[in-house]
């Protein structure tokens, strides 16, 4: 019996596709992370992720998953292969969203309750700095050259540009009500900031020295959907800088935007209350977290069509993919 079990396990190991990608979805209400195979779109497992997991990201090598366990006031860390919990990182109170610098060393965390951005060293697991920002910091973006981290404050309604050299705010840009997310293009020349209650995306061009200039604002309109429900939250832009995808919350749609002309091209119907997005590493698919239908929608990026939805845990919030 024992040897039978062992051989089954061996077969399972051999049979598993060696390089199947994975998506990790944080379930805010379920207190779990759902692991999804991004080739078969099957749920592999779901494991305890701490209390009220929201922001989620992966180390650059894809070996470690970080999640903001908001009600535990820390960042929990998991092995991306075994799902074993590793030592946690200090985050400051009520961490909601964070961004890891490309080297994987410093994690910049928004602390909603304390009007702070906390900078945590992932290697020494110590707090390096606390940067005072506006009221209710949430969105975190990082310039590709890692020189600036952009934080959005939901009640102050600003994008704060924090230098990663001296942790000082260099620029403050006023945007529309309740900014939730900030995202740079891969070339670092453009920044998108979504405003959930304002219903807009503010577009900034970024100069060589990192200074922002507002160049436009994207609004949304869907026939049959009340304008109040067009609430931009998560955003992703393709690495060629051509397409911007914006999650529109209770409008249950992802907007497809020409990232150059800023024209809205299409709206893709997804699950209910769509908040965060992530591409698969090959950028073939875009995954959306739908908090009120407890599922994720898989969008074919080239075709700009939803191809599948997969049930995950309770109230999915964030998503990150690895190879």
């Amino acid at each position, binding site marked *: 019996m024992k040897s039978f079990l062992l051989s089954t396990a061996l077969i399972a190991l051999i049979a598993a596709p060696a390089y199947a990608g994975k998506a990790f979805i944080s379930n805010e209400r379920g207190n779990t992370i759902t692991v999804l195979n991004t080739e078969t779109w099957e749920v592999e497992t779901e494991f305890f992720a701490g209390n009220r997991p929201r922001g989620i990201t992966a180390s650059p090598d894809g070996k470690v998953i970080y999640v903001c366990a908001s009600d535990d006031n820390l960042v929990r860390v998991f092995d991306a292969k075994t799902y074993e919990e590793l030592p946690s990182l200090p985050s400051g109170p*009520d961490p909601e969203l964070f961004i890891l610098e490309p080297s994987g060393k410093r994690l910049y965390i928004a602390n909603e*309750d304390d009007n702070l951005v906390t900078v945590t060293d992932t290697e020494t697991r110590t707090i390096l700095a606390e940067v005072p920002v506006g009221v209710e910091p949430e969105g975190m973006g990082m310039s590709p050259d890692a020189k600036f981290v952009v934080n959005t404050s939901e*009640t102050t*309604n*600003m994008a704060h540009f924090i230098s990663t050299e001296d942790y000082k*705010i260099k620029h403050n840009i006023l945007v529309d009500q309740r900014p939730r997310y900030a995202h740079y293009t891969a070339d670092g020349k453009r920044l998108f900031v979504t405003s959930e209650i304002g219903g807009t995306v503010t577009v900034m061009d970024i100069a060589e020295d990192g200074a922002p200039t507002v160049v436009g604002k994207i609004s949304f309109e869907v026939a049959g959907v009340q304008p109040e429900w067009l609430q931009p939250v998560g955003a992703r832009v393709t690495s060629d800088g051509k397409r911007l995808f914006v999650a529109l919350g209770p409008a249950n749609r992802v907007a497809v935007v020409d990232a150059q002309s800023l024209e809205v091209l299409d709206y893709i119907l997804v699950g209910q209350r769509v908040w965060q997005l992530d591409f698969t590493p090959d950028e073939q698919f875009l995954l959306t977290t739908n908090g009120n239908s407890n599922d994720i929608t898989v969008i074919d990026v080239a075709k700009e069509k939803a191809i599948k939805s997969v049930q995950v845990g309770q109230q999915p919030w964030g998503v990150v993919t690895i190879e």
Partner: protein
Amino acid sequence: MRFWHASLLAAISSVMTAGSALAIDVKAAVLRIDYPTLLPISRYDLPPADLGFAGAALADEDNGTTGGFLGHTYETTTVAVSPEEADAAMAQILADGIKLVVILSRTEDLLRLTDQAAAAGALVFNARAADNALRDDACRGNLLHTAPSHGMMADAVAQFAVWKKWTDWFLISGSNPQDIALAEAYRKAARKFGAEIVEERSFEDTGGSRRTDSGHVLVQRQLPAFTQEAEEHDVVIAADETDYFARYLSYHLWTPRPVMGSGGLVPTTFHGAHEAYGATQYQTRFEELTGRYAKPEDYNVWLALRVVGEAVTRANTAAPDGVRDYAISDEFELAAFKGQKVTFRNWNGQLRQPVLLYDGTITVSVSPQDGFLHQTSPLDTMGLDRPESSCTAFE
């Protein structure tokens, strides 16, 4: 210490604003009239000493944090007075050069103080009075309302009842003028949304204490008798602005039915357990600062001062006219932890906003309900719509 803090802020401001917008020092006041009243039915409803003022403290912090990046400072004076002292207190506020005043008072006092403020060119925010007339023929051009009206509250309840298909109502109203006014709002809401008042009774206010030791024994015998032999109904709607009987209705009815309105499921603008739409962050900030849960009055005052903050931040003005004009313009919008932007009705100065339906512990639902549509905003399905309001002060 306070002086040092202020000068430090000023120093930071001058550095931050070099070459950008002008520094603005925003001064506002909250004037609260404390009326001699009986204690509320529930100890949970005892008014804290800093009622409303705590909302101002949070607003000053929130506005001040934002202002720190722009060279703006915010300072709000708070004054609590008896009705007799109110006019003098207002005169002092105006004499101190403060032109932005949030008032927590009843209708008549509010109107008199608002006119007193108008003579000095000041803008008033109503953070308490729910009287529909203030949004109708008694409106004032220098008066904006962050407090919802009776009409908005009644419509919020009516929409939920209709959504539930509880369209046959048993209306029980109090006997005081404010209860009768509220009952009228429920009658109007029933007509507006297709509910029918199949039975109506008035519960006489005979005075005396609201709470007595073991008083429930008597209540348990009285209320079933009072509510028996009513027409077949789906729900009891209570109109008790005075707060002397409605809280007792649940579980004491002759026919077992849900209670809504002044008892049971209550419409409110905010409560300390509201968590949706990011409100948890508001609650934790408020509790850390004040050491208690937020009350509707705190939220209304916070809203009023956040309106001022938005005008200062976005329109670079703290002048009464400037704030008013910006607030009622199409440019104005404010995130207020209610799931959608709140804006002002430019025909009567009322802040349009969702209304929470609260059972005493949690948010049960939020109105407007799905399916109640309006050509301008679903929020305008609640309260006086443009064609219904005879207010001309904003034209």
